[in-house]
């Protein structure tokens, strides 16, 4: 960890020495989980941010400087990392983070300091609740949970659902509650809810119990690290029900890790995927730029897209405000309307959440396929 930090610091100081006085630059902090359980998503989002930075490195004639810190997928570290960005690096705006628990811990600090923060893929409603300076470029979990429930009940015709929930994770607990609420409201029944804790690797006990309840569908609002092995173990234990998940399961490597066990898996996600038809121009540009700099087996994904959007939306706000003062950026961010991002047209609503459609992805024949968008019935 120290070594990574040292490397990051060295890189930052390297860049810093190139730049001139602080007034000539716009300082944007990036705080993401680059190590630990959420490193998967964090690193992809960082790549998205860096791509956007490469594409648009100046605003209002000033150079934009990025300051990257690792929140280590840890709530305490998240608060410390944010503090460092604000007090030591004196950033004017912050991008981050993946993970609602981390966003909440860091958000408290930004809110107090009055620095605007744009969340990438933290979807729990509490992240922006009652906050003046916290925004996000993703939709929120009530919408996502309702989307998954609608798809399970209406499109697939399932009546009995089970859930396997990470109790140590705000995102997972929140999403499972919203799924349950919508699913029962639509007329379905949740027959079993089992728990586990982040970092667990053995789910056989929970899965054996779930299988005995014979649900039609199992909803796993988990992170990718656990999700793939949950599916593997479920198949090993002879599960035949459908498995569904949320946006945190979105990862290009899902088939590589899960193999045959992830076939038929359905998940809600943000409306971007390299496999989608009729992409908007921004998404197309993003996809082409990614493919030009990455090897063919490394597909872009929605996390990278959200990182890209978070950076661009801040730049857009700075342009509209014609100022890079934190207060002005905050005001302009709140007024964002129809911003054309990779993940669709984004409008920031009064609770500072992004309003955008919900995409559905299905794994078919070992490939991620973008099924289209769904309108959730709340």
């Amino acid at each position, binding site marked *: 960890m120290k070594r990574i930090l040292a490397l990051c610091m060295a890189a930052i100081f390297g860049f810093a020495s190139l730049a001139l006085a602080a007034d000539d630059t716009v300082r944007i902090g990036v705080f993401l989980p680059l190590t630990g359980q959420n490193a998967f998503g964090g690193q992809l989002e960082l790549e998205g941010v860096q791509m956007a930075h490469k594409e648009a490195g100046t605003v209002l004639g000033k150079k934009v400087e990025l300051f990257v810190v690792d929140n280590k997928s840890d709530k305490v570290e998240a608060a410390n990392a944010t503090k460092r960005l604000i007090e030591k690096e004196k950033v004017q705006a912050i991008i981050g983070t993946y993970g609602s628990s981390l966003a909440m811990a860091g958000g408290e600090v930004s809110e107090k300091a009055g620095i605007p923060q744009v969340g990438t893929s933290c979807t729990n409603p509490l992240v922006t609740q009652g906050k003046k300076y916290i925004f996000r470029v993703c939709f929120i979990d009530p919408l996502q949970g309702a989307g998954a429930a609608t798809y399970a009940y209406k499109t697939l015709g399932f009546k009995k659902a089970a859930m396997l929930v990470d109790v140590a994770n705000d995102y997972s607990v929140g999403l499972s509650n919203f799924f349950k609420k919508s699913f029962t409201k639509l007329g379905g029944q949740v027959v079993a809810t089992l728990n*586990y804790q982040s970092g667990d690797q053995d789910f056989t006990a929970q899965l054996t*119990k779930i299988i005995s309840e014979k649900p039609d569908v199992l909803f796993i609002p988990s992170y990718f*690290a656990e999700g793939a092995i949950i599916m593997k173990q479920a198949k*090993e234990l*002879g599960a035949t029900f459908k498995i569904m998940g949320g946006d945190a399961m979105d990862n290009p490597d899902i088939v590589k890790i899960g193999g045959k066990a992830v076939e038929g898996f359905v998940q809600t996600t943000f409306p971007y995927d390299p496999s989608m038809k009729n992409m908007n121009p921004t998404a197309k540009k993003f996809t082409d730029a990614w493919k030009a700099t990455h090897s063919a087996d490394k597909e872009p994904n929605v996390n990278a897209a959200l990182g890209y959007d978070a950076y661009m939306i801040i730049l857009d706000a700075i342009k509209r405000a014609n100022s890079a003062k934190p207060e002005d950026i905050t005001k302009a961010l709140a007024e964002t309307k129809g911003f054309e991002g990779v993940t669709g047209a984004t409008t920031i609503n009064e609770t500072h959440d992004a309003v955008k459609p919900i995409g559905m992805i299905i794994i078919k024949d070992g490939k991620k396929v973008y099924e289209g968008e769904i309108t959730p019935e709340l």
Partner: protein
Amino acid sequence: MTPEMFIQHALNSLTLGSLYALIAIGYTMVYGILRLINFAHSEIFMLGAYFVFWGVSLFSLPWPLAVAASIVFTAGLGIMVDRIAYRPLRDAPRISALISSIGVSFFLQNVAIVFFQAIPRGVYRPEWMEQPWIVGAVRILPITLFVPVLSVLFMLGLLYIVYRTKTGLGMRAISKDIETSYLMGVNVNRVIAITFGIGSGLAAASGIMWALRYPQIQPMMGTIPGFKAFIAAVFGGIGSIQGAVVGGVVLGFIEIMTVAFFPDLAGYRDAFAFILLIGVLLFKPTGLFGARVEDKV
């Protein structure tokens, strides 16, 4: 609960428990001989799994060869760790070596993060491991039976080495009194190096088995299983090889059966493992099979 379900739970417990047992054997052996809790054990465990991963994916070795190479490699690594981090502290108070082992643990973990990246990776599994046998409503994966057998074999092998060979005699002598062993002509450093070699090979073997059961590896994968195995070793009586196996299996049963009978408590099953540790430390600090060792003044 139907009988089939109970059998399924029991089999799941047996697999998990044997995995704990396998890790615990290595822990307990090093402790039994050196009175050192080798915290780096969980990182060697992780490296063992990674070496197989790299062997198969990078050098396209056949799986059994990759496993053998990994065990040899990690055994060498264990000896190196002893040479660099523990041997200079042989005469220092015991706590120094303990702290050194924590340092090694962090060091290896971070080296792994830098060089292997923190992202989880899927692990190759031989075909025959993927096909479950189906008996009624019970599904048995080959590894479910493979791991317990392996644990018992390793236990017997280790008992043989410790109680029936000359090196083992040296190990037992060192565990009693290191200075007297020197005086009696035991090549202490060599015996300790062999101890670490075997311990690390065992850690690698358990890491590889773990990765077969839960086919996803990442640099932090050793931490939690390491803690659990440590609990198992303490429960069985740290230093006792049979104790480690029994402790591991019992812990596996406690964890799975808690979830099976009290599904609502599923999220807190780690807590039960740690409650067990506290209970053992409070009421029977020597564990099931541990002998009371009086410290000499």
